């Protein structure tokens, strides 16, 4: 099988497997996997900036929240339908990513981390400041009517799963396509050696800005979908820990791999969930597992698979 064939088989196989699981998983895991798929889209968005372009952001929660509130506010206050409000969420996240990118990309390295963290904190406080509309920290519960897309009630478990799978598949294949395009190669070149990429004639700022906008939009898509599928829009999703989570998921799953963000999100979700069944000190178990993984698989699960068995893994 050619490299391209293997890539399509692997990623298509994952989507097919998830589709089959929709019919066999018990109710609890059915809901969990739907949630993991949405959060994996967030991680994939983060991976575009961090894993492929080398932009370590500590503020991606603002993009997730921009998508969530961009969708939720018009749905809640204006009664906009699910489709249009989702598009509004995408537009809000893309607009914010463009604005933040233009400013934050004037910095690099540690300064970039700090600037993105500050912008994200400002976004969080903005949500609280406009509490009259956002209900601040308490958040908004979306009505069931505002969660109906083309006649399908997204609060139905199977509809939720299928919608999450659809979004996940689009994000997965888009990432796979992008990293194989010249644009994707340039992003990797920037990650590996920014000066050399510039010397070769690439407009590094423009490519990094494109990466941030795509990354922010994908993160916003996950935020908008999360709000629609689970019915809640809240400021806690803009807090700093929701900027750290995608970094953790990507590091665990394998930065710079297409499949890694999904593996990392799935692993982290069930690590917390299962260890909570064993002990109330579940964060200790989770922390220990993370330390071990970092020691013995520093490139993450996907990175380790690529290193040991599948050098072709994109």
């Amino acid at each position, binding site marked *: 099988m050619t490299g391209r064939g293997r890539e399509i088989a692997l990623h298509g196989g994952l989507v097919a497997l998830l589709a089959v699981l929709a019919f066999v998983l018990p*109710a609890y895991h059915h809901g969990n996997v739907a949630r993991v798929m949405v959060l994996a889209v967030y991680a994939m968005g983060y991976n575009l900036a961090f894993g492929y372009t080398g932009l370590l952001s500590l503020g991606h929660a603002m993009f997730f929240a921009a998508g969530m509130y961009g969708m939720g506010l018009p749905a809640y206050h204006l009664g906009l339908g699910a489709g249009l409000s989702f598009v509004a969420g995408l537009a809000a996240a893309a607009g914010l990513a463009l604005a933040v990118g233009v400013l934050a990309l004037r910095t690099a390295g540690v300064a970039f981390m700090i600037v993105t963290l500050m912008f994200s904190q400002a976004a969080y406080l903005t949500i*609280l400041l406009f*509490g009259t509309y956002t209900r601040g*920290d308490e958040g*908004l519960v979306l009505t069931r009517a505002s969660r109906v897309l083309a006649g399908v009630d997204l609060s139905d478990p199977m509809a939720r799963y299928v919608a999450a799978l659809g979004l996940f598949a689009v994000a997965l294949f888009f990432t796979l396509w992008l990293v194989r395009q010249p644009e994707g190669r340039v992003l990797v070149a920037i990650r590996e050696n920014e000066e050399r990429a510039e010397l070769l004639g690439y407009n590094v700022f423009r490519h990094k800005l494109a990466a941030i906008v795509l990354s922010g939009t994908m993160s916003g898509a996950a935020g908008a979908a999360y709000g629609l599928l689970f019915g809640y829009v809240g*400021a806690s999703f803009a807090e700093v820990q929701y900027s750290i989570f995608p970094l953790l998921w990507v590091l665990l799953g394998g930065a710079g791999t297409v499949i890694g963000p999904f593996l990392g999100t799935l692993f982290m979700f069930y690590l917390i969930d299962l260890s*909570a069944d064993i002990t109330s000190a579940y964060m200790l178990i989770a922390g220990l597992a993370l330390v071990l993984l970092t020691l013995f698989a520093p490139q993450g699960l996907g990175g380790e698979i690529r290193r040991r068995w599948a050098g072709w893994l994109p």
Partner: protein
Amino acid sequence: MSESFKPADPARRGALKTLAGAAAGAASLPLWARYAGAQSAEPIRIGFQMHATGIGAAYGRWYDRTTRAATSLINEAGGINGRPVEIVTEDDGTDPKRGAEVVEKFANQHNCDVGYGTLFSHVVMGSAPRAGELKMPYFVVSEGHHVASGALNRWTVQPGICDVKSQVLAMAPFVSQTLGKKVTMIFPDYAFGHDHRDFFSEAMAANGGEVIAKLAIPPTETSFTKYFPKIPRETEVIYHVMVGPAVLTFVKEMGEFFGPSRPEIFGFIDSLEAVDLSSPGLEFLEGTYFWEGMPRYAQPDQTPYDAHYRAAVGVDETGASVNDPKDVSTYAHMFGCWETLYVIKAGMEAAGYQGPADRQKLIEAVEAMTDMPHSNEHPQGAKRFNGKTHQVFGPQYISKLEGGRLDVIHTASLEETFYPDEVDYTARSF
């Protein structure tokens, strides 16, 4: 193949022997086996959504203790519908996302009959939609106005603790008539603080008073000195409702600002739940007034219900743990867990609850509840449940901090906590 039975010894001595043996045997059985007479000996599973970690952990610890104490008594008294009660605890990290996941876990993995015990409003808001979709009764102990405002669903009820709107409305007559007419409010700049700002401003105006300044403090603030000069000179009462770890700094800096000549000060004990009132820096609060959901200190006219509840949970007369006087309880709120569990019990018994198929009947039975008399089951006071708004109403207490302890000086009546219905959940579908 069926086993053959030997007829019992008809002799009287033999019969007595058999009875005595059976009684001794029953007494030696484990607890679960004593419920074998019920239609099902399966326990009633109550999913307890606990804030074990995160910002709500201090509350969570005491909500847990109260829950275990009430459950123990309920089981000793025969359980619910002849079945033992089992508490299934899951930590939600005081996080709405995890809260929703925990609700799913209760419904789909632990096979809980109901979900229960959530305190922080944002966790309730994040979790309630999933409870509604899973059609699982969700009993919150939050004091948020979210239930009675109509923001949630038919499956979410708050029958054990009053909401912030009724608490605040009941304070305004006392503040206006006793402390002063001109009030400056200092509150955290997010939803909880905004509820206080809006409800209290409205209530003061209705009681002949006026809120002359509203100082919103950003949640990230760690020093408050720049806000105190904004307090108008003509202020007669300061109303504060700060929460979180910065509250000690807030009080200390307020004391340094005003010195010995200060206006009257009225606050919500939420600021100082689980905090020892003799902590350094809190001396300035001596002589100030507090709202309490239930009086932390045992009062001279302590009811037998409070004594019963206090002893069962393990709280001494100062509101601290009987095992550790430094471990101060969240006494003004945690009674809500106790009372909610007894409402669940009463609701299940009224509905003849047998299992998840009867969940709708349970909600309807709770909606049909009205008066709840002051009793061991409702030690905070007599209450009235509004089935339409899914919200309970009860008395509110105002205490004065004197000599390092809080003494109740005024009790707002049940009627003072009422306000017009904002929703009729009974008209909504399940």
